[in-house]
């Protein structure tokens, strides 16, 4: 494998070798050193509200069943029969008390424990030959949740999720904790685009600069009043530990007036006041910034916008929130999973119109999203060639040649959010995201421990001792 040191050095300078957006070797590094280690989003608890509910999700090629077991606990299990490796669940979603492998009939409870092993006595000599007791589908090496968002890491020694998310939790709450009961998440729409996964993540993390150009059409048709160039540059971009995003500058007013300006009804505003900290409220009420797009490293993004959803003469808008994952398929293909998010306690009419706003703007049919993907496919195509190996894309916006800042970072008095924030156009977040990417890709992978069942590989500890407690 080629030495990529020069690539990582250039990326840290904000100069991006264009081929990283379509390069097999880079993609293999990403698989082995990034996606095998990082915390990865799988699902939201509200997608499996009832006992027995499940969804099947992926981390690259690895399929996982996310279930709510009979005790009501969320479990994430590798979707591979312990015997011959079949997928034990071949549906995307449903409700099941157990999963039966169609190949030889091994079955597993919805918490992963082996339930049935046909002819256990005759074929294996019972427990003495294959220890069934305590054996489970492989649990995700690490699993944790934040605001109901279920993450796993393939690294059993991953740092705690809360540490990984770090200060970005402050911003994540705007999208996923608008009231004490949290959100409901619907979807996802899934579709595949011939674009590299990093482009979307970078775009949502901080690209305010593309909005007035790429998304001109949605302003022209009266769907959206905000993305006009002069308005977009009044917002800020921020980066905090694991993620970054963009904001819009709101017109003068109180906290309540500003939340109403983007279309929240009074009762939702009251609940926001109860669930957000003073700093979280100050970002809006005192500082006048409203969160918009964001990305969490490595591959999930969020968006919050407020279009006009009904045919009226008034300027009335309604907000929606979307969560999406840029699931890498290869160096030049990405599966987009796009969910709609709405506060659980929102009025039903709000939920319906917010859903409509989402469909009109983002997702597979969204009028914002359509134009983005066209650009990203084109970029990915171009990045495959020889010339792209020579060109370093300039991602230094907001920074002068000598590394000094074009504008100073906002002070705590100007912006109550954690991390570092700057008003105006800049590629701060994109640089942060790709620097983090370089950190992961540079670090040699630790060899993953083998797992052998019923244990008979010499010199290796069998997994026969796997206790039930280990899965709790």
């Amino acid at each position, binding site marked *: 494998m080629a030495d990529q040191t020069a690539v990582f050095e250039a990326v840290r300078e904000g100069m991006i070798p264009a081929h990283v957006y379509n390069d097999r070797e880079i993609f293999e590094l990403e698989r082995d050193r990034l996606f095998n280690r990082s915390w990865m989003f799988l699902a939201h608890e509200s997608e499996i509200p009832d006992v027995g509910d499940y969804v099947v999700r992926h981390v690259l090629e690895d399929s996982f069943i996310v279930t709510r077991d009979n005790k009501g606990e969320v479990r994430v299990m590798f979707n591979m029969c312990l015997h011959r490796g079949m997928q034990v669940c*071949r*549906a*995307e*979603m*449903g*409700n*099941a008390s157990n999963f039966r492998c169609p190949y030889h009939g091994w079955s597993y409870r919805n918490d992963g424990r082996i339930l049935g092993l046909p002819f256990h006595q005759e074929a294996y000599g019972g427990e003495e030959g294959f220890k069934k007791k305590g054996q489970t589908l492989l649990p995700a090496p690490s699993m944790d949740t934040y605001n109901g968002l279920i993450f796993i890491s393939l690294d059993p020694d991953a740092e705690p999720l809360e540490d990984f998310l770090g200060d970005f939790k402050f911003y994540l709450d705007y999208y996923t904790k608008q009231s004490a009961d949290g959100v409901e998440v*619907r*979807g*996802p*729409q*899934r*579709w*595949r*685009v*011939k674009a590299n996964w990093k482009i979307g993540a970078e775009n949502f993390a901080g690209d305010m600069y593309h909005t007035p150009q*790429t998304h*001109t*059409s*949605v302003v*022209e*048709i*009266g*769907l959206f009043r905000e993305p006009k160039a002069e308005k977009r540059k009044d917002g800020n971009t921020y980066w905090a530990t694991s993620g970054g995003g963009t904001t819009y500058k709101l017109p003068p007013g109180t906290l309540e007036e500003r939340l109403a300006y983007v279309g929240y009804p009074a009762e939702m505003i009251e609940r926001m006041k109860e669930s957000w900290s003073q700093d979280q409220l100050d970002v809006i009420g005192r500082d006048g910034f409203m969160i918009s797009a964001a990305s969490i490293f490595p591959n999930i993004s969020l968006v919050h916008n407020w279009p006009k*959803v*009904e*045919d009226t003469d008034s300027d009335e808008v309604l907000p929606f929130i979307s969560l999406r994952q840029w699931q890498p398929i290869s160096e030049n293909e990405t*599966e987009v999973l796009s969910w*709609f998010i709405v506060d659980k306690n929102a009025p*039903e009419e709000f*939920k*319906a119109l917010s*859903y*409509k706003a989402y*469909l*009109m703007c983002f*997702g*597979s*049919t*969204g*009028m914002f*999203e*359509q*134009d983005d*993907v*066209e*650009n990203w*496919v084109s970029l990915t*195509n171009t990045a495959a060639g020889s010339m792209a190996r020579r060109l370093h894309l300039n991602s230094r916006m907001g920074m002068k040649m000598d590394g000094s800042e074009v504008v100073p970072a906002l002070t705590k008095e100007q912006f109550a959010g954690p991390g570092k924030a700057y008003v105006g156009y800049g590629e701060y977040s994109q640089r942060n995201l790709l620097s983090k990417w370089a950190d992961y890709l540079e670090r040699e992978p630790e060899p993953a421990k083998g797992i052998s069942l019923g244990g008979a590989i010499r010199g290796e500890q069998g997994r026969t001792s796997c206790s039930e407690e280990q899965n709790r």
Partner: protein
Amino acid sequence: MTTHYPIDARRSQLAGHASTTEKVGESLPFDDPRHLSAHRWIVEETYLLDEQRYQDWLATLADDIHYYMPVKVTTALGAGYDTAPGMAHFDENKYSLSRRVARFETEHAWTEDPPSRLRHFVTNVRTFATDNDDEIVVESATLLFRSRGDINEPAIVSAGRRDLLRRNGDGWLLARRHLAVDESVLRTQNLAIFL
């Protein structure tokens, strides 16, 4: 055990305005004047869509149109549903469709500049009477071939359709379209097209 779940608009939060007229009885004979006229209507429509004459297409839609394509999901046999709860690709009324059409008329809808080359293949057409003389149900299969740029792989979208056509003078207006898309993961970069 059934493997077919007809699209149920009650699963949409945005169908309150839509007609609930259902088909009645067996399909009409292929020489029935209503079938012939409805068949002609949907063939004519494919030309509007292929040629991207979207304003003309919009004029063929009733004011209470519900244009609905739920997200298909793979579920176990006997699960009782095969679409994602509360989520669709399209869940449109006339206003939202009109915004989509208006966008294509700006000079900044990049996703269709250069435009896609589209070919809708519509077949398996059958027509049903309803409990009123002014409306008929038309079922069909559609296969969209979409090519973009010079070397990009083309995209194909396959879907079953159940339409409600309403009499309008000598012709028909589309009052409802339920689209059963045949893939859970779409292999096209977006749905900046209509089916």
